[in-house]
């Protein structure tokens, strides 16, 4: 059972406009409008309840919280009555009437509740069990036949519904309607037949469906993932932070015998409140199946073979030392703050290079400049609380439901307080519709133009209203990582912010990106957002690192630039009369969690990895990079190490080691071993040491480089049948961290391509559209959508629609489409 006092101010805070009430004879002064049940909570009086939830509207459905109120003829539900001046409430502790009423309700609820606690997943942590013991009769007087239903039905692939256990508290249906906005689950029938259910052809495929399992006060809703796996007394729980996206949800991870069995949302009022998304809740199978178990090195024949740690570390250290400043480090976006900081320091101090990039996705120099100027090491941006109060929240290349689900839930909450949402996107997505947002229709590539009209206040229609609201105090612009894919967008966002005063928040998809940025895991930036070409910044960091200022490298290259450099080297070697004499500028790569398929040009990246002489990969699971690496070192997954993630707000939240007996080592620890083998002291990779050092460096307060103006790329000349791609990644897709969770994968939204009616007519598409590029061709089911012509939207990396690897395109690129065969 979840009991919080969220939203209830302390009685002493506002004595003047409070009301005086008495609960069980104890006088209280509480703010007007407080619910009786909350006042009782403040006193420590637990009134039994099922339907009441502090984050849902009161409904008084279960009638369990009946209390006696002086002057009222009958007991009243404490969860739905607000206090009034002079109200005298007596709970079951002092009133026999209330106690009898509660016992009666409990007996009534148990009439149809089956006695199948032994096979019920909720057994042991069940509010109905607990309250039946505390507030029920010892014996049942009912000897009739209980109402039964056929045993559990799948309301989705992941969620199972046992209707006979339901006490019709409507927590799940209220959550679906009020919080998630997915009213796929509702109360059906009436009277004794009342039951929770779904429509015949609409499964409960919400991204937030797992929350209903957690808030169900009986075992009516259970998840296929946890079904029959454990009892609460078997579990060891650790508070953790979700590693799946930049929302930064607090979670509770439950472990039985060194296996993670369940993750639940933790009460974290400033971030995720008490909710999380299904990906964070159910996607943890990747940590157990298909992991790399031993260090791997190349044998004489070039095959990867298992090796001992000292052997593999020695080879990695020798190769990296030989390469030195000719190395480059790609960290990926999934590292903890501590690990990202270790890579940043390792590159500068041990390797002597600034060639480091955490952005394992399409990225540009414009983005690097934007991040350095507006995001890195700055903690003055908007927070979740600001989203609730903003007059308008403008979404730029950002789809909150898919890319940062808790932002979506906060905007939904803000919506009820009058927050307006506007989105610069090609069509109104399901998420935007649920946010009641206004769409500023924008074809891919036109974002800078639309932003410019908002900046100049020359927009028309809906955009004019948005433009006006952006100038009000508290307005927020949320810009997604996809903005980097359209040149000029981030510059235009910065200009819009400067013109209107609206604050910017950059929301990447991955959990580690903001932390990596703040830690200095990007070329040109030292920890805390310090420009590497600033003398004062260099001096501060050099002092903390105990190195000479001149030893710190000059500005290095981004991932994209390094790949280009490697290919330039290759061409130079191919063209040279004596290839052996041509020296490569990049001679080794140190790669953490980089998935080639996420990059703008996977083929070019893999070719670059192939041609660089020495590659070290620190990975959890086998990937296209580990196949090409000379040394593969296995590292700990999120549950196997302690650490911290910085979410999009800049809020750094630490978490403990969940699997305490895990033998895997964190990236920091492995890096320190490599450094030691090179003969350099790099600490022990100890998390407290790293945190303390990073804290001493602190954020940069000095001058930052201005964001240079970026050229806006003119629209493409489209031939007949050519369309421009708009795309993002849905929450559930082919992501590596979702592997090993078939029930979760089955709740992913169906893969469809979206085109406008006119575009469909032009190519004669009906059900299926064939999308082709010089790289390849795929068939995708098509949905006609109200959107600009000559634009196609497809999921970026879903089953049957992997644009990067199958077509070699991303947002803003051109593909050819034709009508599919019937």
């Amino acid at each position: 059972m979840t009991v919080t006092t969220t939203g209830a101010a302390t009685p002493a805070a506002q004595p003047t406009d409070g009301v005086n009430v008495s609960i069980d004879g104890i006088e209280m002064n509480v703010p007007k409008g407080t619910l009786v049940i909350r006042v009782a909570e403040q006193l420590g009086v637990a009134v039994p309840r099922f339907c009441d939830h502090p984050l849902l509207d009161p409904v008084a459905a279960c009638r369990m919280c009946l209390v006696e109120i002086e002057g009222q003829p009958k007991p009243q539900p404490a969860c739905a009555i607000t206090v009034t001046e002079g109200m005298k409430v007596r709970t079951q502790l002092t009133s026999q009437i209330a106690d009898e009423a509660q016992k009666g309700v409990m007996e009534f609820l148990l009439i149809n509740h089956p006695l199948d606690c032994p096979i019920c997943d909720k057994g042991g942590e069940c509010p109905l069990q607990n309250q039946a013991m505390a507030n029920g009769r010892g014996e049942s007087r009912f000897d009739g036949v209980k109402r039964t239903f056929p045993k559990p039905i799948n309301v989705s692939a992941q969620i199972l519904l046992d209707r006979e256990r339901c006490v019709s508290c409507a927590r799940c249906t209220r959550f679906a309607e009020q919080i998630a906005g997915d009213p796929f689950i509702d109360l059906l029938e009436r009277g004794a037949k009342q039951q929770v259910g779904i429509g015949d052809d609409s499964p409960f495929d919400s991204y937030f469906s797992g929350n209903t399992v957690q808030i169900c006060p009986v075992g009516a809703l259970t998840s296929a993932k946890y079904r029959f796996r454990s009892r609460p007394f078997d579990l060891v729980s650790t508070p953790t932070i979700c590693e799946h996206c930049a929302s930064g949800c607090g979670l509770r991870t439950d472990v039985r015998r060194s296996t993670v069995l369940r993750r639940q949302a933790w009460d974290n009022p400033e971030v995720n409140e008490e909710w999380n998304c299904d990906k964070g809740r159910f996607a943890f199978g990747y940590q157990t199946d298909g992991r790399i178990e031993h260090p791997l090195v190349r044998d004489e024949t070039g095959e990867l073979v298992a090796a001992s740690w000292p052997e593999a570390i020695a080879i990695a250290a020798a190769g990296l030392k030989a390469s030195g400043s000719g190395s480059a480090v790609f960290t990926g976006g999934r590292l903890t703050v501590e690990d990202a900081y270790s890579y940043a320091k390792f590159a500068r101090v041990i390797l002597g290079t600034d060639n480091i990039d955490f952005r394992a996705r399409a990225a540009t120099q414009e983005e690097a400049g934007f991040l350095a100027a507006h995001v890195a090491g700055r903690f003055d941006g908007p927070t979740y609380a600001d989203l609730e109060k903003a007059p308008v929240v403008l979404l730029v290349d950002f789809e909150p439901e898919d890319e940062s689900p808790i932002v979506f839930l906060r905007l939904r909450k803000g919506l009820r307080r009058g927050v307006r949402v506007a989105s610069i996107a090609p069509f109104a997505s399901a998420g935007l519709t649920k946010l009641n947002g206004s769409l500023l229709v924008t074809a891919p590539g036109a974002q800078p133009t639309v932003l410019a009209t908002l900046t100049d206040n020359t927009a028309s229609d809906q955009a004019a209203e948005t433009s006006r609201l952006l100038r009000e105090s508290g307005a927020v612009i949320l810009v997604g990582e996809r903005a980097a894919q359209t040149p000029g967008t981030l510059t235009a966002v910065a200009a819009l912010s400067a013109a209107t005063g609206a604050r910017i928040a950059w929301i990447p998809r991955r959990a580690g990106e903001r932390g990596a940025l703040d830690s200095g895991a990007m070329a040109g930036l030292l920890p805390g957002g310090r420009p590497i070409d600033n003398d004062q910044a260099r001096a501060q960091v050099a002092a903390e690192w105990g190195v000479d200022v001149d030893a710190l490298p000059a500005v290095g290259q981004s991932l994209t630039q390094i790949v280009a450099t490697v290919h330039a080297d290759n061409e130079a070697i191919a063209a040279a009369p004596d290839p052996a004499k041509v020296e490569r500028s990049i001679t080794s790569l140190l790669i953490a969690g980089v998935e080639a398929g996420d990059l703008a040009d996977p083929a070019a990246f893999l070719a670059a990895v192939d041609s660089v002489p020495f590659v070290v990969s620190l990975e959890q699971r086998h990937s296209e990079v580990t196949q090409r690496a000379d040394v593969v070192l296995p590292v700990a997954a999120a549950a196997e190490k302690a650490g911290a993630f910085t979410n999009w707000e800049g809020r750094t939240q630490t978490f403990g080691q969940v699997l305490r007996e895990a033998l895997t080592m964190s990236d920091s620890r492995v890096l320190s071993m490599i450094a030691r083998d090179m003969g350099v002291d790099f600490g022990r990779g100890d998390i407290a040491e790293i945190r303390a050092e990073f804290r001493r460096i602190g954020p940069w307060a000095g001058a930052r480089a201005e964001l240079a103006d970026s050229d806006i790329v003119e629209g493409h000349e489209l031939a007949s049948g050519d369309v421009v791609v708009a795309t993002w990644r849905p929450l559930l897709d082919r992501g590596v961290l979702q592997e090993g969770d078939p029930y979760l994968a089955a709740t992913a939204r169906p893969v469809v391509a979206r085109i406008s009616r006119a575009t469909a007519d032009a190519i004669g598409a009906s059900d299926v559209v064939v999308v082709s590029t010089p790289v390849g061709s795929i068939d995708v089911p098509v949905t006609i959508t109200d959107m600009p012509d000559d634009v196609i939207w497809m999921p970026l990396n879903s089953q049957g629609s992997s644009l990067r690897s199958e077509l070699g395109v991303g947002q803003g690129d051109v593909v050819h489409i034709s009508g599919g065969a019937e």
Partner: protein
Amino acid sequence: MSDERRFFRGFAVPFRQMFKKPNTEYYPEEKTPTAPRFHGRHQLNRHPDGLEKCIGCELCAWACPADAIFVEGAPNTDEERYSPGERYGRVYQINYLRCILCGLCIEACPTRALTMTNEYELADDSRAKLIYEKEDLLGPLLAGMAMPPHQMYPGTTETDYYLGNVLGAAAVQSGEAEARRLGTWISEDADEEAVS
């Protein structure tokens, strides 16, 4: 008292014992039966058709004051059924190095799956051997029982099992068990047979 008298008096007790019946138990050559409700080794019982009574609820593990029982439940499926109903005990271990044979577990068992036998010879030469697995604890297949996994008695629900309406394995159940033993079982046929 003289020294002689004191000396011989000391032999009085052994002398009296010479005429008493010896109390020696010739264990292990001769074994005396225990009291009928002696708390010995546990047994996991079966329904009359051979399906397991254990539903993997872990109430025994919960009740255990010595933390000697480890249970993991799992869902039954139509292809592979070990007990009537939705859930069965996939893993069942009792650690007899910890067990104090108090019997709280059998009191907690909601299906009478777990009972205790009179077997008390629980000694062995390694720790691992004293952790009894499910196959060590399951009761023998008696006459009329078929080895799970197999389907439920045709036309019954789990309620019938608890009401005692199932008295032995039907031909389809025994047939399925035999086919599985021989490795010739195909689950689609089972549905047709059950219907016919």
